[in-house]
């Protein structure tokens, strides 16, 4: 474990150059992060989310059958497994390899953990020609469980792949196969189970949700003197807002900003105690649960008879949301366009002059922007949050070009890694973002994702970067004149 405490190697030099952030590549250190695994799932959670409560009998065979099923269902997966030329362009692009130096965290090597099993059962000729192939066994499963849960499915590697191989698809397939044989992490399964039991990832029961909203109304009254509402379960509202439940727990400035936003526009809105979560941990586990979690949002929208669903400041919510039409749709009972992310909604209205804004209200901070992997790379929202920041702040600085937009680094805890037992991996993986932020001298890091908002303050503290982390709407909230 001593190695872990030291990574990433302290001797590496990070500096800003005119070509972007110089990102040093560590020496390879085999098995450096092998001891770091997630706590295993609990039977009660697995039962609640319709997965096997223990390792299924003949799990090796069952896993291969599941792989075969996925190969038929997702042609992309088979293509990705077949076409990789092992060129290594992805190797030094992953924040977890850069952080740990463990070669299994190179995207190509991580994918090879599945590829070697695929070859063994489905590519006999290649196998006889001497390509690496291995049957699915306990040792391979251990590697899968370790390294496919040290990947945040952020897809930075795929941006640099000359073939465009989406390694996150491979991680997702491996996690899906493991889930089918009863192998999953406590963190992810517990969160999905809470959504079915209480409607949201945090497990906030309805009465507590209402109490929170009333409390925030009082806070808003004290701050603005206005009767700004935080409505819950209001049938016939125009908008159903599905935000990360963390916004009504930890990121309360963002939650209050939503309230001010709709108040200023005079738009009626509501949250739902059935679906008070946009976030979708099913995405980090398997298809069935992703679908079931996402469906709750449309069910709530029908129940509350809203005209539109708006997704809040959340990354994985948005990645699942953009599948909604094919996953749970059609969404044609809602006003187009759909789905809508709150940054699209707000940026559009700002452009149309819907708000009175005093930018000097944010003059106390130098703002920079972190693209959450799911909002930016997976969800194509590159301009909207930036337009919001430019419209609400005088002082905005971008991080080095090789660390933002589609090349953004993951915060280090997406994809179901935001759990304490992975803390060394999280801090190692968060280092590129910390260094990029340090290079700007910014004092406020805006980001529209609850996982980033939970992870980045820890990362910045760990790497000694003095910056406050908060939402994008928080800035609008500060600058808006009501």
């Amino acid at each position: 474990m001593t190695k872990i405490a030291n990574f990433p190697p302290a001797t590496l030099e990070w500096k800003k150059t005119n070509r972007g952030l110089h990102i040093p590549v560590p020496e390879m250190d085999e098995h450096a992060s092998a001891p770091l695994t997630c706590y295993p799932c609990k039977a009660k959670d697995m039962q609640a989310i319709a997965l096997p409560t223990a390792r299924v009998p003949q799990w090796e065979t069952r896993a291969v059958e599941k792989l075969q099923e996925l190969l038929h269902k997702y042609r992309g997966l088979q293509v990705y497994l077949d076409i990789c030329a092992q060129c290594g362009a992805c190797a030094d692009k992953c924040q977890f390899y850069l952080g740990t130096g463990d070669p299994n965290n190179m995207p190509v090597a991580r994918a090879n953990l599945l590829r070697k099993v695929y070859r063994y059962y489905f590519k006999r000729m290649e196998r006889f020609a001497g390509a690496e192939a291995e049957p699915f066994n306990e040792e391979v499963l251990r590697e899968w469980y370790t390294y496919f849960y040290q990947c945040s499915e952020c897809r930075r590697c795929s941006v640099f792949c000359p073939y465009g191989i989406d390694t996150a698809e491979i991680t997702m397939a491996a996690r899906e196969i493991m889930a089918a044989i009863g192998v999953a992490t406590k963190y992810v399964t517990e969160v999905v189970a809470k959504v079915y039991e209480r409607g949201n990832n945090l497990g906030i029961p309805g009465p507590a949700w209402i109490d929170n909203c009333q409390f925030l109304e009082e806070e808003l009254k004290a701050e603005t003197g206005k009767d700004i509402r935080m409505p819950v379960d209001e049938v016939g509202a125009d908008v159903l807002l599905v935000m990360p439940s963390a916004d009504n727990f930890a990121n309360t400035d963002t939650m209050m900003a939503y309230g001010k936003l709709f108040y200023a526009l005079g738009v009626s809105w509501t949250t739902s105690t059935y679906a008070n979560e946009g976030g979708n941990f099913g995405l980090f586990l398997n298809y069935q649960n992703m679908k079931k979690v996402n469906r709750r949002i449309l069910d709530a929208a029908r129940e509350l008879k809203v005209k539109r669903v708006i997704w809040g400041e959340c990354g994985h919510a948005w990645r699942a949301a953009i599948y909604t039409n094919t996953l749970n749709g059609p969404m044609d009972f809602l006003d187009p366009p759909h789905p809508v992310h709150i940054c699209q909604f707000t940026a559009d209205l700002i452009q149309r002059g819907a708000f009175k804004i005093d930018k000097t209200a944010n003059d106390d901070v130098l703002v920079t922007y972190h693209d959450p992997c799911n909002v930016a790379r997976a969800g194509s929202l590159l301009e909207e949050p930036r337009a919001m920041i430019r419209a609400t702040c005088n002082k905005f600085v971008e991080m080095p070009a090789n660390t933002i937009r589609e090349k953004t680094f993951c915060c280090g805890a997406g994809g179901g890694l935001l759990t304490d037992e992975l803390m060394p991996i999280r801090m190692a993986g968060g280092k590129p973002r910390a260094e990029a932020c340090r290079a700007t001298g910014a004092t406020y890091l805006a980001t529209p994702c609850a996982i980033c908002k939970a992870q980045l303050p820890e990362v910045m503290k760990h790497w000694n970067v003095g910056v406050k982390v908060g939402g994008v709407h928080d800035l609008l909230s500060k600058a808006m004149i009501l």
Partner: protein
Amino acid sequence: MPFLDYKGTQLEVDEDGFITEPSLWNEDLAKFIAETQEDIKELTPDHWKVINYLNNYYKQFGIAPMIRKVTKETGFDLKYIYELFPSGPAKGACKIAGLPKPTGCV
């Protein structure tokens, strides 16, 4: 499942040391957890103000209160709460107050 050796009995806790049965919580157990797991030698009246608020809120609502409420209700700012509970309100304070660990995107 790990256990906590408390006064000769084995108390079930989760991997992070949070008791799994909140109804077994009492003030003496809070002192025990504070000392053995959080390295807080003595619980002052300010500690108790936070602990009791958390515990009562959990009894009423079945979840930890939002941080903003904790600071408002106790009158302590976040910095002071971190001084009282160095591992933070969600980890240290909730553990001592017998609440389950808050998980999700937090």
